[in-house]
């Protein structure tokens, strides 16, 4: 397995393979084809755009306009339509261009996709995937840079998936498409070009199984999506000081693999959660509360959270850089946790 793919291409491959295998799989979203096939006299437009990051490029020529649908800028409409299509037998994969646009589609997700199975007494499933893009560090300002993982995670009935590597992105997306429930699949715009070996054949990675990215005995660092890489950078620095950090990528936030996190903290006695989102009511607070409640006796020091600020993401480059947690802040949090511990 020498072939390498970046996250963007791994997602594209997952979509292509699932569409080839199952004709119930259709794509909908803004500009996912982007003018493709509009003008026969202008063949360059045949595969024009594929969304702002080119993730769906090449799918329209292969599968046609019936299965790769450019929608209007109307998230309530197309997310709602995808819910209905899912109930009626299709497997829609919808793209919400940026997670920040959650507000324009959230009623359909919060009050319908997430609840219909429950309120109808388990008689209906909504096999829907919503792909969306999160993350700061792109100079994209306050309305295109958020990481709203926790808003979706808070809602029972939605499954929330956020891969940090290419191999995970492929396996988790195929699992999401085959899953009978609505899955919010969050891609981080700063990770699209991350590449690694990715198997060519289709495969799935089950939800609710965290990945221990690095083993260590002194501190557990849980990273939220892009922050997995920041945690790894911090772990390298710490290792040079003789501190061995265990880095965990939960990969799916709903369901959350609580046991892997708790077992790790039981081993290391310390926890740092790194989440680039706002600190209040976040994955960081959620995971910190889980450990405080269920592994308190194992803790040898205070839980630390390294997060963005309780502020919108600023545009100005130095302000945005200061906003997003970096490895130095993680290292500092680990050290301060060690300093305030007992044995």
């Amino acid at each position, binding site marked *: 397995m020498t072939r390498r793919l970046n996250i963007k291409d791994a997602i594209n491959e997952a979509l292509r393979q699932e569409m080839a295998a199952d004709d119930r799989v259709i794509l909908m979203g803004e500009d996912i084809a982007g*003018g493709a096939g509009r003008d026969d006299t202008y063949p360059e437009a045949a595969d024009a755009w594929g969304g702002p990051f080119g993730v769906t490029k090449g799918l329209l020529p292969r599968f046609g306009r019936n299965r790769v649908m450019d929608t209007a*800028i109307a998230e309530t409409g197309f997310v709602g339509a995808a819910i209905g299509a899912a109930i009626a037998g299709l497997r829609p994969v919808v793209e919400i261009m940026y997670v920040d646009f959650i507000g324009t589609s959230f009623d359909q997700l919060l009050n319908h996709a997430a609840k219909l199975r429950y309120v109808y007494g388990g008689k209906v499933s909504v096999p829907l995937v919503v792909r969306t893009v999160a993350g700061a560090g792109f100079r994209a300002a306050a*309305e295109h840079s958020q990481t709203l993982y926790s808003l979706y995670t808070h809602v029972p009935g939605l499954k929330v998936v956020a891969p940090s590597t290419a191999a995970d992105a492929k396996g988790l997306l195929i699992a999401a498409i085959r899953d009978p429930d609505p899955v919010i699949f969050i891609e981080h715009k700063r990770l699209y070009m991350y590449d690694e070996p990715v198997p060519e054949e289709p495969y799935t990675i089950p939800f609710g199984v965290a990945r221990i990215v690095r083993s260590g005995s002194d501190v557990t660092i849980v990273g939220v999506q892009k922050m997995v890489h920041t945690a790894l950078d911090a772990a390298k620095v710490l290792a040079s000081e003789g501190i061995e950090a265990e880095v965990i990528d939960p990969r799916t936030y709903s369901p959350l693999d609580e046991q892997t996190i708790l077992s790790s903290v039981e081993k290391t006695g310390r926890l740092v959660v790194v989440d680039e989102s706002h600190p209040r009511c976040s994955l960081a607070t959620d995971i910190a509360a889980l450990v405080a409640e269920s592994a308190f006796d194992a803790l040898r020091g205070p839980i630390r959270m390294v997060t963005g600020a309780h502020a919108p993401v600023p545009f100005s480059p130095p*302000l945005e850089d200061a906003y997003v947690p970096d490895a130095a802040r993680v290292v500092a949090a680990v050290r301060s946790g060690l300093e305030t511990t007992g044995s």
Partner: protein
Amino acid sequence: MVRIRIFEARVSAVAEAKLVDGYLHTYAGQEAVACGIIPLLREDDWFTSTYRNHGHAIARDIPLDAIAGEIYGKATGVCGGKGGSMHVADQTRGMIGGMGIVAGGLPIATGAALASRYLGRDSVAVAFFGDGAVHQGAWHEALDFAGLFQCPVIFVCENNLYAETTAVDYHLLAGSVAAMTAPYGIPSVQVDGMDVFSVREAGEEAIARARGGEGPSLIEAMTYRYGGQYEGDTQTYKPPKEVAWWRDRDPLLRFRASVAGRVDSTVLDTIERTVAEEVAAAFDAAERAPWPDLTQVTADVYTPTA
């Protein structure tokens, strides 16, 4: 129009040279819309804009230094660098601001108009938006609200033929945006958005109606976006013959042609030279300006209280 054209050319150039980061949405091609409407507004009128807002800010005489500073993310920016290109705003000049979410400004402009009516004033509000916005619930809900409460708001559609990259012939079921206001009882007109005089005439009529207590109206200005959805967009979705057709109707050339014989062309040339110097100075100032202090990350989240 010249100021906008030259300013946006500079934005494209600094984007290409990677001197500025982030999403930059330029207004070149659409100048006649901003310049047809905004100079008609009084000091106490309001307007909302979109992420393609530099042209509106320039037409409202917001200093170029402050706009360029904002695009660079510098402390001298009109929003201190926090908003960036998509969020240029100056409420002291009635520009509520640019919004990054499609159709986000329509309900807000409607509310500003409601406030004017409530307070017994005859000020009006304008909401600028693109053809892609008409599909959003917010668009329909704003028109419904404005119609029900007879708000003095003018909805100005800059129909530049593309909702991001999706062509209007794919997405606009009604054939025109102007045709979509009938159910809300809102009068509408479609005008040549490449001709500043046509836009101005429609604007005068709509503003007079709103000021006179006759409620909302909509102007659909047919125009063309010379740039991509954002700077760096390869625009492979645009057929070259379409681009050429619209370039032939360029609003600056149209203006020159329509005033030929009445205005000496050397006067117009002088204006272009002066404006080019002014724009260059604004970008140089932005380049040299300081970054915001890092404490600004958490400043302005809430209003300070005494």
